[in-house]
């Protein structure tokens, strides 16, 4: 069992930590409320708030590095949020190494993407609204990672779900965007139920939702409850991070503008699930079954993402499935327990750099190609967009794990830890992860070859609005962030792994990184194996895609694996059959019950009255004599009644 750190009070710069999320929240509020008047300067306000948050986060981080290790976990209590009988929820911040790492990631990458968006969204009339929603997202994500109890995490969780819905559906004139936003929100919601149930379980069993108290007393929970909490938290993570079985919203989320895909669906929101599991590590440390479920989900997802990514021609969808797969690696890592928490976070950071860079590069390519996303219409763009191409290629090399770039350190560490798992798990997890690494190399190389090299297929084509394609480099506001992210993609891995720097920094939050017991394969073999598989993937892609001309029209006659992959391995078909159709049938049934049943009863009562009245009114003959007769008969009855009473 790892020792839990002492939680101190936050002083110094850290007492300003509330500004971290308040500034973007205020930015969002101002931009939403001022409306069109802010259209000319709104985006700069949006950039300013996030950059200011980054500066404050950096100052707090630097202050924390100056503290001795035992004092690095601090909490700042702001006010009591909920105080009713038995439930006391604080609105407070936890400033420990894990949350500060995330703060830097969110605000740092966020600032770069905000700056990129000033260029990318330059011609969009809804630019101010975009920045308002993006600021809202940053504020919510910061609340998520900074909260010191599960309910604040849930608040941020819901907030990022809302921001994601707004941003995916940003292009309000496209029905497909609205559908994708709805799908994302609904699938997130399914996951949120899991998180809510986990919080309920924690409260009913421990009476508290505060991290410090829960983690101290997690040992009091019975094994069944621990497994239940672990699985429910995992369900929440699956919803937010797009893991199996809730993965199909992520590729559809590419309907949103590319900066959204870069920030939310690559670097930050989708990593919230990994954060949740890493943060709850004292709970996961106590339940081996729970960890096993997590790793299995991670393994399944990383394979699914890699397989489907090989079959798509839409550049953003390939990157989206790549994200699904890479987060699968992160989930696999945190599922390995103390041997993997820090590795998952390391991969999360390096992935944040290179995937955001790749998405921004894809956005740059789309910008140059009139927003066309079909790679079959690209080709030979390297000489027209040098900066984009070079930064993209650096991100690509990092992703496939080219030796000594950042992905190499993080992905290989995870695969090594996977192989070191006991018994059959080592072979299965390690093998699957290695296979997926090879597939990753294949589909990314295919993407790069189709886009930047080969013949210029767009020369003979016209874009959707009938114009010729004139690919050009993007403006500096877009290329500068891409360059910075590429630098991070190259160096981050080395810097963070060197001497286990990151693992050591995170140990107050995640516990000491344990070396896995020597399992299936010896340590030294694994890097060679992984590089070998990746090289194989690159080679196959070069032979299949690079050497042959790419057809501009999508081939219809393909093998069954490709057909299955094009249909998302039938995930959407399954969702439709299992949930959508029965759901529609259920609502149709309710509507019919309401129309015919409930309305029938009410209308039936009405027509009953009408019918009986039309029968009864026949007594009104208008005939005076019959009225007189009934009056006489009535009075006789009264007299008879009186006499009966009198003589009874």
């Amino acid at each position, binding site marked *: 069992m790892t020792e839990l750190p002492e939680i101190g009070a936050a002083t110094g710069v850290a007492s300003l930590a509330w500004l971290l999320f308040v500034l973007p929240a205020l930015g969002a509020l101002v931009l939403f409320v001022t409306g069109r008047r802010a259209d000319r300067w709104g985006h700069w306000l949006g950039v300013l708030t996030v950059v200011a948050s980054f500066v404050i986060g950096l100052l707090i981080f630097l202050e924390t590095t100056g503290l001795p290790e035992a004092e690095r976990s601090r909490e700042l209590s702001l006010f009591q949020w909920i105080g009713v009988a038995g439930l006391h929820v604080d609105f407070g911040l936890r400033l420990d190494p894990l949350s500060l790492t995330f703060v830097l990631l969110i605000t740092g990458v966020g600032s770069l993407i905000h700056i990129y968006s000033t260029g990318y969204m330059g011609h969009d009339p809804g630019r101010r609204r975009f920045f308002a929603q993006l600021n809202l997202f940053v504020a919510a994500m910061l609340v998520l990672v900074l909260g010191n109890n599960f309910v604040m995490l849930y608040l941020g969780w819901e907030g990022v779900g809302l921001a994601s819905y707004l941003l995916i559906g940003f292009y309000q004139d496209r029905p497909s965007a609205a559908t994708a936003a709805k799908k994302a929100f609904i699938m997130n919601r399914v996951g949120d139920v899991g998180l809510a149930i986990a919080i309920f379980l924690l409260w009913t069993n421990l009476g508290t939702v505060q991290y410090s108290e829960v983690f101290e007393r997690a040992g009091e929970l019975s094994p069944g409850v621990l497994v239940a909490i672990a699985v429910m938290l995992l369900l929440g993570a699956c919803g937010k991070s797009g893991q199996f079985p809730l993965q199909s919203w992520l590729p559809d989320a590419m309907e949103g503008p590319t900066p959204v895909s870069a920030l939310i669906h690559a670097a930050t929101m989708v990593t919230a699930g990994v954060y949740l599991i890493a943060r709850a590590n004292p709970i996961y440390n106590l339940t081996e079954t729970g960890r096993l479920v997590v790793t299995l989900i991670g393994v399944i997802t990383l394979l699914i993402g890699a397989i489907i990514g090989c079959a798509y021609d839409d550049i953003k969808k390939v990157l989206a499935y790549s994200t699904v797969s890479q987060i699968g690696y992160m989930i696999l890592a945190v599922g390995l327990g103390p041997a993997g928490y820090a590795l998952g976070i390391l991969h999360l950071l390096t992935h944040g750099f290179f995937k955001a860079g790749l998405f921004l590069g894809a956005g740059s390519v789309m910008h140059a190609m009139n927003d066309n996303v079909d790679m079959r219409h690209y080709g030979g763009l390297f000489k027209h967009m040098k900066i984009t191409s070079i930064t993209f290629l650096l991100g690509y090399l990092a992703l496939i794990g080219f030796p000594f770039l950042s992905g190499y350190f993080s992905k290989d560490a995870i695969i090594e830890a996977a192989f070191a798992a006991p018994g059959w798990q080592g072979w299965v997890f390690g093998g699957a992860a290695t296979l997926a690494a090879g597939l990753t190399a294949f589909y990314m190389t295919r993407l790069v070859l189709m886009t930047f090299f080969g013949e210029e297929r767009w020369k003979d084509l016209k874009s959707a609005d009938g114009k010729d394609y004139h690919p050009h480099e993007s403006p500096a506001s877009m290329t500068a962030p891409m360059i910075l992210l590429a630098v991070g993609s190259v160096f981050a891995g080395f810097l963070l792994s060197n001497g286990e720097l990151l693992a050591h920094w995170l140990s107050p939050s995640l516990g000491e990184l344990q070396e896995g017991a020597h399992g299936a394969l010896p340590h030294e073999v694994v890097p060679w194996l992984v590089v070998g598989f990746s090289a194989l993937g690159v080679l196959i892609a070069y032979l299949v895609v690079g050497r042959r001309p790419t057809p501009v029209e999508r081939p219809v006659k393909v093998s069954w694996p490709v057909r299955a992959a094009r249909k998302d391995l039938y995930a959407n078909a399954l969702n439709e059959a299992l949930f959508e159709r029965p759901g529609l049938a259920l609502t149709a049934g309710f509507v019919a019950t309401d129309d015919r049943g409930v309305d029938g009863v009410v209308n039936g009562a009405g027509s009953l009255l009408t019918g009986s009245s039309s029968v009864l009114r*026949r007594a009104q*003959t*208008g*005939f*005076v*004599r019959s009225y*007189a007769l009934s009056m*006489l008969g009535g009075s006789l009855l009264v007299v008879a009644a009186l006499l009966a009473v009198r003589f009874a």
Partner: protein
Amino acid sequence: MSPTNYLLLSALLFSIGAVGVLVRRNAIVVFMCVELMLNAVNLTLVTFSRMNGGLDGQVMAFFVMVVAAAEVVVGLAIIMSIFRTRRSSSIDDANLLKY
């Protein structure tokens, strides 16, 4: 002369009047039958006052006569106006309140 004879007489008169109201078609004749019923009641009241030895029944008979007079005024006025517009005094013809 026992008072029961008077009561029988007034009962007879009342029934004749009631049957007349139900059976006759001319509105004026119906009215006369109603008057007959009222007078039968007067006779009953006076008889009972004689039987009980008080004057209550006789005073009530005065009331009944006043009411009968007022009622005849109003009723004949209504019949007159119906006759003027409809040219018929048969009560069967005034059946506009039929459903």
